Every structure is written in C-alpha cells, then in structure tokens.
C-alpha cells in the first residue's frame, strides 16, 4: 500500500491528465493504468465558450483521489493562491507543489518550492512537492513535514528517464515519507527502474498521453511499476565483477 498522509492506495502509479488526444482515449488509458490518483492543473474558465468539455465530467470523480498542481506559479505566494483555489473545489486537500523557476528547463525553483511547501503545510494541506533530485533539498522538505517527496527523474516532458539514479536512491534511503518519482519518465523500464530503486510511486503524464497508443502505454506503465516494485521487494542480487556459473560444476565428467 502507498500511504500519503491519511490516504492509502493500492496502485503506485499516479497519472497526469494533460495533453491526451481526446477524452475517450484518456478515459480508457486511465482505466487501463489502474491508477487511483489523477493530477490536474487549475486554470481560468473560458467564460465566452462555456460548452467546452471537461475531463472531470467524463469520469466518476469519487473513484479517484485528485491531486491538483500549482503549475503556472513562479513564486511561493502564487503557488499558495492556486492551492487554495484548488481546495475550494471541495474535491481534494492534497496539493502537488510545482513552482517552476526556469522556462527553458522547467526545473523547479528550490527556494520558492520550500517556501510554498511550508506555507501550505501551515494551511493544513497534504503537501507533495515536485522537486529536483537534490538530496539535501529533499531532506529539508521532509523536515518541514511534507507528506511525500517527488523528485524529478529528468526534466518535465523529456522522457529521458532517470538521469541520476544515485541521487534518487539517496533520497529514497534517507526518507521516512513516500518518495514518488515525478517527471521525465519515458518508457515502462524507466518506471520499473524507479521502483527497483525503492521509490514508493511514480507520477507520469506525457509518456502516456504522448505515446502512439496511450491506452496500451498506460497498461504498460502499470506493469512497469508492478514489476519494478516486486523486484525491489524480492531483493536484487549484489552486482559482481566476476562471472559465477548458474549451472552446477559437478558431474561434468560426461564431457
């Protein structure tokens, strides 16, 4: 079970809801992924085009835990405002803190992320900050009382996989709250790798929504996460620099 604050989840895959080709494909992808947590952004309604469909109308909202993000915020204050708007929906009290500090790399601003997380914790939110793979920053976020830490595998939308597995491992080893690898996942093996390192979950979006077949990729990601987690729990063999035969050495006199 993945436990975040007061909530428990069977699935360790968190799925974003951005940039799917259409709602029907998205709905099927969400179902195939078997995710229980969906992320959303908060944006202005188009008051002059009220009939635009919304994905929330297409799904049974009660079946999912919604994790809105603060994307668009560049300062802690902006993130807090977006988080409060999200909470006013009455649909959730979890927030993914996302304070982007650089338009080119979309890397999170560490100072503003820390500040926003602290402010949101004081406001009573369940706080899940999206952060870089900086080990000490992850520790500082945990020390504040964040309910999970979400280090990026690589920059958002790149699909480059885990650039620095050592840092991700250090973050996992030191953390007593769940670590969810968020952003940069490209293929199921990236998700599996994150889970093999001991991550408690994986959050991805573009890898599924941008795939040629998002539904099939959603299912593949489910298996990637399951396989990686099972491998982690099973305990891997140590890496060795020399070969060790797996067939017996006895009884070779037949040759």
């Amino acid at each position: 079970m993945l436990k975040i604050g007061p909530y428990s989840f069977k699935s360790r895959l968190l799925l974003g809801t951005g940039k799917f080709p259409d709602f029907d494909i998205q709905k099927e992808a969400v179902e195939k992924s078997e995710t229980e947590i969906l992320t959303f952004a908060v944006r202005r309604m188009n008051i002059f085009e009220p009939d635009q469909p919304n994905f929330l109308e297409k799904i049974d909202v009660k079946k999912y835990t919604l994790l809105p993000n603060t994307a668009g915020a560049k300062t802690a204050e902006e993130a807090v405002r977006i988080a409060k708007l999200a909470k006013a929906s009455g649909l959730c009290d979890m927030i993914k803190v996302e304070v982007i500090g650089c338009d080119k790399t979309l890397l999170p601003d560490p100072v503003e992320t820390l500040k926003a997380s602290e402010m949101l914790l004081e406001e009573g939110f369940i706080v899940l900050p999206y952060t870089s793979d900086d080990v000490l920053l992850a520790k500082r976020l945990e020390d504040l009382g964040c309910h999970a830490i979400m280090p990026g595998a690589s920059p958002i939308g790149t699909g480059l996989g885990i650039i620095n597995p050592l840092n991700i491992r250090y973050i996992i080893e030191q953390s007593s709250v769940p670590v969810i690898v968020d952003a940069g996942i490209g293929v199921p093996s990236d998700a599996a790798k994150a889970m093999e390192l001991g991550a408690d979950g994986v959050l991805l979006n573009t890898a599924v929504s941008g795939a040629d077949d998002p539904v099939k990729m959603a299912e593949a990601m489910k298996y990637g996460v399951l396989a990686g987690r099972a491998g982690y729990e099973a305990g891997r063999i140590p890496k060795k620099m020399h070969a060790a035969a797996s067939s017996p050495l006895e009884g070779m006199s037949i040759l």
Partner: protein
Amino acid sequence: MNMTVNGRGVELPDHVTTVRDLLDHFKLNKELAIVELNQSILDKTTRDDAVLNDGDRIEIVQFVGGG
C-alpha cells in the same frame, strides 16, 4: 453593472446580482467552477448567494488537464 471577470471587463445586465446569477449568465458549470471575488476565495457551499457590486474583480477557475 461593470465588472472584471477573468481579466476581461464585462457589462452585466441588472438582474445579475449574485455569483449564482453570474454563473448562470455565462452558462458555466457550477460543479466545476471555483470563484474568487476581489481576491477572496469563496466557499463552494455558500458562494452562490454572494452579492456582486459594481467594479468587482472576479476569477472563475476550474480543474483542467495537467501533470
């Protein structure tokens, strides 16, 4: 009555006096809409009766797809 809604100046008919009227006027989905009036976020359970005044600044937001 003149107001700023989502950053745009709009002129509203006289019968629009509450948040409920405003959402109805623009035919917005009340379930999805989250309303901020003059930088104060309105509680969903009580917001429909909030009274509007000339010059108010209103933000109406919703959840959209995002990662």
